[in-house]
């Protein structure tokens, strides 16, 4: 029994088994990535992704050879380091392939180079003496290379900080190897100068000078992320070497001072700190990246969208600085917690290697390397999660970038070499506390990142996803059919056409644009498209289980529901034809049920051509985007004095404030309240003042005179076609109100009767800002046997004859049996 367990735990066997498990994960990831286009298109006929399998092959080769080397030369090395490296780098490689195939191919070559480094480097290297001996040479070379970027620096992407040295398509970022060289130098220096009675100053002076020099270089280059990483690494190594806790406080203070100074000196720092503290203030500008990152994390939720099914490409530079956001979106909280566990395990094994190291140099070196990997991961993951200000460092092993990958692999190689002599007694450890504290701090950092990830993914996620700058909604609109808007006879007003992946909104009756609005990936939504969005998008009216299932499978809502409106296109056409080339609005209302039969607003626009017209429409002084019928606010003094108020017994309406009984009547007629309707409407006027009203309000008030004094509640969206129950009625939002006694309404209507016709009418004029308005109100008489109707016409011009002609035309068309 005992024999079996011990063989089972032989380090090289552990390494082999863990590598196999990592390979299973990578294989499944690659398989999922291959199938993802089919899942996205919801059909088996799709263009499957295959390129990344080359990357998988390279990955397998790299780690097969690395494992063979370690089996032959250093079989007693730490068995967790290599599998963790394999898991993380394979995961990163496939994520980069998924984001941008060209970058994936390059990263694959870099992985091969890093594999070569591992394979060549994995041989017994007693005491790493050469590193210790040539520490100054190495450091000077690193600093010189970094300094060269000041002169010859380029940026492979074109603009931005010039941190790379490049030639012939190969770019090196010298600050990456500089990290490693600085750690080696510090470890060697501290090990050589380990005094019995530690005094900080002599220990610090030369190292602080060198680190300061490196920092200056980085600051001159504006590589502030790496600079902050240097400060952290230096602090950790000095802390471990000296064992003084005050090092931590001094460094924290220094970092704070540097941060404040940087805030005022560097635009980059200011921008990033502002974006960190107040990202919601400028979501489309300075904090665009971080908001998009949070949206990606929120879209990932608990389980993630699956490889290839998220939209991480919406986050800028997602392959390097924001690869964590991409992973969070596609693998979800479950994936990132696993990622944090893997990083934590790597750091923990590294610190264990440090504790078991046979001399002070290797101990400090291993501590420094583990701390560097841990701190850099926390810095960038925390930056993506808005836990920390954004620092443009890479996520070790995962981010795109050859220099970063090589440096991380070199760090792991050194850790493996340090761990390869377990037979040696560990060096005595005079001060164990700094090691505990460092491990605790790194663990807390990862825990904080995990908790923050949970907060964005699970708690704030659902709210975040409804933000209008979440472009995933627009992408979903291309893949999921949006519901149609139909008129009362089922004729199409607005519908979605095309194939999944290329769905487009078709506006069959563009003149209705101010009412029905638009849905557009850039300009958002307006009108009914906005107010009925939950139904049209399928998030309301569908069974909750279906919505949940579709979100789980595709991260998208189920197919949208059609909505039937109360509009009658025949009547609507008359209004639109007549109003063309005029500015005005028309409302035709069923006076008893409140159903809106026609609602026109002119000038109008074509919502199908927003792409080219949006800017012009926004600046047009005639305001075509405004729905004048429901959102316009017009003076109505003539209407009050001649039509509504006289029945209250007040012939002359006071020009400043109406008296109480009149106010009550006007309020009952709804002139002081916005109509309750699933459509954006104008705000109400404050009481005690003469009301400014919309034509819709006028129509509802007029309806009371055709409907025995009852003001109906308006309705526009009549019914929604649900998959489970067919057409389901959408009830009116408000209730009818007895605005005035039936007899009084009848008297008023008869006072304005049109000779020989079954309806009353009234025409009047008002002025607004010096320009004239024409109001026309008409409606059936109270004793009309069929459906009672009211019509309101408003013209922003002095044109009573047109108003009367249009009003009568609409009434006659509506009353025709």
């Amino acid at each position: 029994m005992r024999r079996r367990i011990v063989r089972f735990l032989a380090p090289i066997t552990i390494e082999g088994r863990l590598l196999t498990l990592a390979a299973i994960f990578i294989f499944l990831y690659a398989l999922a990535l291959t199938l993802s286009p089919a899942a996205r298109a919801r059909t088996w006929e799709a263009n499957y992704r295959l390129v990344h399998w080359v990357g998988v092959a390279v990955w397998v080769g790299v780690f097969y050879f690395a494992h063979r080397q370690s089996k032959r030369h250093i079989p007693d090395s730490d068995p967790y380091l290599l599998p963790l490296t394999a898991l993380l780098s394979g995961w990163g490689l496939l994520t980069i392939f998924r984001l941008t195939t060209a970058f994936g191919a390059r990263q694959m070559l870099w992985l091969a180079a890093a594999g070569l480094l591992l394979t060549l480097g994995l041989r017994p290297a007693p005491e790493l003496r050469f590193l210790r001996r040539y520490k100054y040479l190495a450091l000077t070379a690193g600093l010189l290379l970094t300094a060269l970027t000041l002169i010859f620096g380029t940026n492979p992407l074109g603009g931005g900080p010039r941190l790379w040295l490049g030639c012939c398509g190969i770019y090196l970022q010298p600050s990456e190897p500089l990290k490693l060289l600085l750690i080696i130098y510090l470890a060697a220096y501290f090990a050589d100068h380990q005094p019995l009675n530690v005094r900080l100053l002599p220990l610090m002076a030369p190292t602080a000078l060198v680190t300061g020099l490196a920092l200056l270089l980085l600051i001159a280059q504006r590589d502030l992320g790496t600079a902050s990483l240097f400060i952290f690494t230096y602090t950790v190594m000095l802390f471990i070497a000296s064992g003084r806790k005050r090092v931590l406080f001094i460094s924290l203070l220094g970092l704070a001072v540097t941060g404040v100074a940087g805030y005022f000196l560097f635009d980059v720092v200011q921008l990033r700190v502002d974006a960190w503290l107040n990202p919601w203030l400028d979501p489309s500008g300075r904090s665009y990246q971080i908001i998009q990152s949070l949206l990606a994390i929120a879209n990932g939720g608990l389980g993630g969208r699956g490889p290839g099914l998220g939209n991480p490409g919406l986050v800028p530079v997602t392959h390097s600085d924001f690869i964590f956001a991409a992973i969070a979106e596609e693998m979800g909280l479950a994936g990132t917690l696993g990622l944090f566990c893997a990083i934590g395990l790597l750091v923990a094994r590294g610190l264990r290697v440090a504790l078991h190291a046979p001399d002070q140099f290797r101990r400090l070196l291993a501590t420094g390397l583990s701390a560097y990997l841990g701190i850099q991961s926390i810095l960038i993951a925390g930056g993506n999660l808005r836990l920390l200000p954004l620092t443009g460092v890479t996520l070790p092993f995962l981010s795109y970038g050859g220099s970063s990958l090589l440096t991380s692999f070199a760090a792991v190689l050194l850790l493996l070499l340090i761990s390869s002599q377990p037979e040696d007694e560990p060096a005595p450890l005079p001060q164990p506390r700094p090691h505990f504290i460092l491990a605790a701090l790194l663990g807390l950092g990862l825990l904080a990142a995990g908790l923050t990830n949970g907060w964005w993914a699970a708690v704030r996620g659902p709210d975040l996803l409804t933000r209008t700058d979440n472009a995933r909604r627009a992408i979903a609109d291309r893949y999921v059919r949006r519901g149609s808007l139909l008129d009362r006879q089922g004729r199409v007003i607005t519908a979605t056409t095309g194939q999944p992946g290329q769905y487009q909104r078709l506006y069959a009756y563009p003149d209705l644009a101010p009412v029905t609005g638009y849905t557009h990936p850039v300009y958002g939504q307006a009108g009914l498209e906005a107010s009925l969005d939950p139904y049209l998008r399928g998030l309301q009216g569908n069974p909750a289980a279906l919505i949940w299932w579709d979100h789980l499978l595709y991260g998208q809502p189920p197919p949208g529901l059609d909505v039937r409106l109360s509009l009658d296109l025949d009547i609507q056409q008359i209004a639109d034809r007549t109003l063309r080339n005029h500015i005005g609005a028309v409302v035709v209302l069923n006076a008893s049920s409140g159903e809106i039969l026609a609602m026109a607003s002119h000038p109008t626009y074509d919502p199908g051509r927003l792409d080219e017209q949006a800017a012009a429409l926004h600046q047009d002084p005639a305001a075509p985007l405004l729905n004048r019928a429901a959102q316009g606010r017009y003076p109505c003094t003539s209407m009050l004095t001649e039509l509504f108020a006289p029945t209250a017994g007040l012939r002359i309406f006071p020009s400043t404030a109406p008296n109480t009984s009149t106010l009550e009547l006007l309020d009952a007629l709804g002139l002081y309240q916005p109509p309750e309707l699933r459509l954006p409407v104008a705000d109400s006027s404050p009481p005690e003042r003469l009301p400014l009203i919309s034509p819709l309000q006028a129509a509802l008030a007029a309806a009371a005179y055709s409907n025995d004094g009852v003001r109906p509640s308006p309705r526009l969206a009549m019914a929604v076609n649900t998959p489970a129950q067919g057409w389901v009625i959408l009830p009116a939002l408000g209730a009818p109100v007895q605005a005035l006694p039936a007899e009084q309404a009848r008297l008023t209507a008869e006072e304005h009767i049109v000779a020989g016709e079954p309806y009353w009418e009234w025409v009047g004029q008002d002025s607004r800002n010096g320009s004239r308005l024409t109001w026309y109100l008409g409606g059936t008489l109270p004793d009309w046997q069929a459906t009672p109707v009211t019509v309101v016409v408003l013209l922003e011009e002095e044109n009573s004859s047109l108003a009367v002609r249009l009003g009568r035309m609409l009434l006659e068309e509506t009353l025709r049996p």
Partner: protein
Amino acid sequence: MSGPLFLVLRILLTASLYAFLGWAFFLLWQDIRQQAMLLALRKVPPISLMIQREGSAAQIRHFNQPEITIGRDPACECPLNDETVSARHARLSYHHGQWWLEDLNSTNGTRLNQEPVSTPTVIISDDEIGCGKARLTVIMAGDNLMPPTQKLPEEEKPA
């Protein structure tokens, strides 16, 4: 149909990630277990003390634990009811493959083969420990002597 199948794949993917981590943590646990078992394998060689006090017959006591405190306090592993012995007088402990004797600041001091003990000292069989007026003779059976550390059977390589 592609969606549900993909969901299964996604679940398998996450499961494989946690299989990796779970296996790693299981191995770490196994590692701890193995360390514990290795330590448990290091048996303490039994030690016996022949206690001789004035006015009473010599008596032999056998011990199996790695730490033996000698003193007047009855809670001591080896209590001595003697006025000249302090409450907690001296300690015998087994580490680094040896039994060590150490004085616990006793009033009358501890002697090893008549020499006063000031620092922890290695003892062997037939040594005589003096605590106050009591004398204790160390008896370690020869066949019970253990090598300092034990090799596991598996690490025995054919020579």
